[in-house]
């Protein structure tokens, strides 16, 4: 493919995009912040372009810098990845004005689905049911309270320009509505550069199921099937799978049709995801459109064998989609565990730091998308997602079995991660039997966490055995010792001489 592509992102997704580009012969230019100068994707991009400094606003959110980088390096296209500027209409416009192909929807489609409120309206117009909520952005916290009281608590405050589960808070009373209005607004400004907030009714424990679609510029919209994303905390997906145990063939058909109808009505192009909330009765509501490549796209790739990034590049350069709806066959089952640098023992507080040791899982049906290596740093400036561990199986049971093994193999030392949580989840009866909804993880978290706390006793046992096995402190890094001193220390530490 004749294209030179600027990758306006970092970490695992930058590497993911580079991999497809190398397959297709597309030249890549990777922009990078100071903090990412030694990151893994830097090794595989054809060219590198420094943005200088490290905060998102000075780097991956800085439209003028990115457009200049693309022009300077002679790129004809920009892939935004996910997060950052991936759904920012100003960025798309800036690309178009500079004659750069934006790998994503056209600005016309973005105008229709540009923000969460517009998307709601557009879906409503094409006959898809939406969740009751405010018709426009809220002016202040008092209006938040008024609207919330009209539709009834609990409600969700959402950043109109938000995405990726960020900029969202559940309020259960007027006090929380006021407080969370302020926090959501702050979060929205810092993460998305806009402050508009709106309100939706919070449904009682629905499932979160989404349809991955691809649309070309010639009017073809194809569904690549659904993903089940109900395992969430703080509205952040933690685990995704494809397909979903919640759908039977008729409900699947309905969701696929609603998603395609909604996207077609907006003349949407490129990869897009339509998210739905499904009540226990099977009644479903439009939640939002993700107008970008998603974190969890890999489970769809595993079940459809389609390279979504490749299709994105083709569609953006005016080609027809390489397949039609009747050629899409969902094969087997795929699960993705998001490995975040967060400490499950401290309420999942983000834990940046240095990875001192990394060993990825591998084997049949295992895919790891990550930019980790032993010695890499996990900067504090960016998202806490550091790896995606996905498994494929002929059925759900096999995918789960493979995930258990893969989680055991995956060694990430130096920053606490969510591996332990996934390990317990893979053995949790509700998850294994497919009986869960969006409230499930929060409900079982204390139980899973108490199991994780039991690890401490195991740690004590391993520490004792580890000490006996290698009583001599080894020379690591700056620590220097002589054999005589080590021997003396060994004796004093283990009490060999006196205890005998």
């Amino acid at each position: 493919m004749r294209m030179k592509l600027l990758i306006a992102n970092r970490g695992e997704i930058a590497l993911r995009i580079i991999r497809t580009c190398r397959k297709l012969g597309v030249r890549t230019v990777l922009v990078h912040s100071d903090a990412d100068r030694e990151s893994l994707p830097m090794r595989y991009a054809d060219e590198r372009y420094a943005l200088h400094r490290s905060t998102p606003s000075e780097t991956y959110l800085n439209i003028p810098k990115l457009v200049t980088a693309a022009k300077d390096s002679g790129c004809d296209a920009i892939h935004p990845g996910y997060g950052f500027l991936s759904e920012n209409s100003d960025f798309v416009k800036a690309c178009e004005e500079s004659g750069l192909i934006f790998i994503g929807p056209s600005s016309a489609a973005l105008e229709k689905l540009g923000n969460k409120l517009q998307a709601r309206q557009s879906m409503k117009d094409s006959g898809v049911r939406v969740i009751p909520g405010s018709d426009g952005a809220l002016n202040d916290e008092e209006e938040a309270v008024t609207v919330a009281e009209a539709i009834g608590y609990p409600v969700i405050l959402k950043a109109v320009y938000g995405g990726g589960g960020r900029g969202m808070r559940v309020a259960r009373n007027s006090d929380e509505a006021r407080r969370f209005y302020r926090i959501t607004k702050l979060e929205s400004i810092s993460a998305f550069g806009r402050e508009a907030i709106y309100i939706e009714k919070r449904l009682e424990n629905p499932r979160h199921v989404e349809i991955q679609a691809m649309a070309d510029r010639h009017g073809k919209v194809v569904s690549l099937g659904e993903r089940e994303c109900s395992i969430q905390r703080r509205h952040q997906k933690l685990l995704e799978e494809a397909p979903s145990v919640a759908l039977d063939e008729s409900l699947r058909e309905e969701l696929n049709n609603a998603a395609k109808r909604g996207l077609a009505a907006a003349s949407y192009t490129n990869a897009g995801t339509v998210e739905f909330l499904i009540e226990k009765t099977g009644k479903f509501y439009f939640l939002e459109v993700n107008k970008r490549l998603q974190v969890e796209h890999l489970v769809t790739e595993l079940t459809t064998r389609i390279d979504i990034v490749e299709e994105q590049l083709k569609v953006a350069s005016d080609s027809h989609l390489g397949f039609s709806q009747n050629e899409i066959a969902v094969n087997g089952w795929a699960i993705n565990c998001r490995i975040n640098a967060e400490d499950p023992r401290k309420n999942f507080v983000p834990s940046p730091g240095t990875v001192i040791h990394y060993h990825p899982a591998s084997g049949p049906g295992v895919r790891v998308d990550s930019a980790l290596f032993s010695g890499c740093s996990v900067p504090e400036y960016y998202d806490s997602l550091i790896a995606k561990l996905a498994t494929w199986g002929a059925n759900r049971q096999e995918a789960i079995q493979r995930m258990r093994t893969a989680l055991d193999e995956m060694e990430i030392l130096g920053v606490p991660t969510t591996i332990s949580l996934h390990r317990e989840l893979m053995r949790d009866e509700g998850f294994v039997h497919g009986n869960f909804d969006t409230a499930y993880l929060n409900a079982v978290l204390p139980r899973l966490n108490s199991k994780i706390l039991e690890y401490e006793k195991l740690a004590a046992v391993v520490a004792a055995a580890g000490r006996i096995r290698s009583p001599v402190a080894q020379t690591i890094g700056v620590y220097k010792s002589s054999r005589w001193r080590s021997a003396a220390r060994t004796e004093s530490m283990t009490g060999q001489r006196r205890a005998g």
Partner: protein
Amino acid sequence: MRTLRVRVNERAYTVSVDQTGKDRFDATVNGERFELEVATSEHIASWLVRYSNEPIHAQTRVLPNGKVDVWLAGIPFPASVQAVGIGGYPIAREALRQESIGGEVRSLMPGRVTSILVKEGEAVKEGTPLLILEAMKMQNEITSPIAGEVKSVIAKEGATVKKDSVLILIE
């Protein structure tokens, strides 16, 4: 059979260990028995621990001064190990620093203070939001660990703070 006193976080465990082979150990803690096997001999060793349920994998790194870093499913457990001599007294003396926590509200992560929600002299309950700390794109509400009065607000709005820096004092 060797008996060791192991501290993990703030808890102490007495562990009896028997080396049953070159790379095999039996260990007992609180009457519970574990079988351990060690796989590699690099500076980070890999362990398989068998106990009542399913086996679990662990990694260790032995450091000077009786310190052993242990990881289980990616969670770090920094431990310190002392041999127990005759009469059960620890032989190697190690200053076990008990972190004074009290009413110090510390930063659990490096980040930026985006907003301070309390003033000095204000009464707070356990769980009262004190400030908002932005880290990794998330706005984290830092709440009071205890009920009391805000003695001093050390953090400044907009300031970048390191991990473990004291943000607010509560009395």
